[in-house]
């Protein structure tokens, strides 16, 4: 297997892992960091796919600005998710 495509698959794996963590974590601050990690690795992937302008936009807006806006919103509300009464399994959330 070509090594460049290996790197792509590793980046996609990290992105999926961070996205799952961003949904699952109860600490919203940590979830925002997971979401920003998705954007950061997406911008790396865009760079490997020869789209440097999209990579720049994704890094500036996805990783920096939207993460900062989410953190400001958390600062005004609460940091932790409340427990629901009925918690469905990890495979389906309504």
């Amino acid at each position, binding site marked *: 297997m070509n090594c460049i495509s290996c790197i792509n698959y590793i980046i996609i794996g990290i992105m999926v892992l961070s996205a799952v963590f961003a949904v699952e974590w109860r600490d919203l601050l940590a979830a925002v960091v997971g979401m920003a990690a998705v954007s950061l690795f997406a911008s790396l992937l865009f760079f490997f796919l020869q789209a*440097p*302008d999209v990579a*720049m*936009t994704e890094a*500036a*807006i996805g990783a*920096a*600005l939207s993460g*900062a*806006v989410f953190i*400001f*919103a958390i600062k*005004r509300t609460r940091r932790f998710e409340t427990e629901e009464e009925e918690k469905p399994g990890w495979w*389906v959330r309504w």
Partner: protein
Amino acid sequence: MVSILKRSLAIITILIIGYWLAVAMSHVPFGQDKMLVGQYYLNHVKDQTGAINAVTAIVVNYRGFDTLGEVTVLFIASTGVGALLWKRKRERTARVPGSVVLTTGTRFLFPFIVLFGAYIFIHGHLTPGGGFPGGATIATGFLLLYMAFTVYEIPHKGFEVTEGLVGMSYVAVGLIGLLIGSYFLYDWIWQTWHVGTVGKLFSGGFIPIIYILIGLKVGTELSGIIDNMLKEGVSGND
């Protein structure tokens, strides 16, 4: 019991839709050219627009009206944030000052971040980039200032005036094309005079002009959104 039935029904529906989509997508050849317009752009971009970067040439020149719409969407988003978070008296309420590393790093890095953002949108017709990434980069510089210093605020008056003037001049640049006797957002600099040589900074018709305008607009607007999100209403006796 009902919920289990509902869930299994939903899962079966999702599986059916997924199978249907997978079968439909397996017949579409991946990565092949099915449209001729992309090749047309690549063949004619140099002599029709004078830009090296075909992406920005399409975004600003061939599809300039869409870009005007994007700028309008961003303006409406910024206006909406400002309207939702409006209070009569708002101040910065940060108490903890930034650490020495953060403040010193911000003092050193801020001019270079702004310079890099300006480089991105001035060279939009030559190198990857353009007005939107450049403006976002400048806004991250202002975000850094907000995080490092507890009393810092953007110069509101200047930023608002710049934003309005720049948005109007984008429409004005488009209207000049209409005045000359062609269509709205006609590239009057390159199509009529052929200013500059292809590949140099002074070329590309009105792409650098419009990207400078868009970069300033996006930078000031996103900085304004950051400012709106950070400041809190002071519930004192006003």
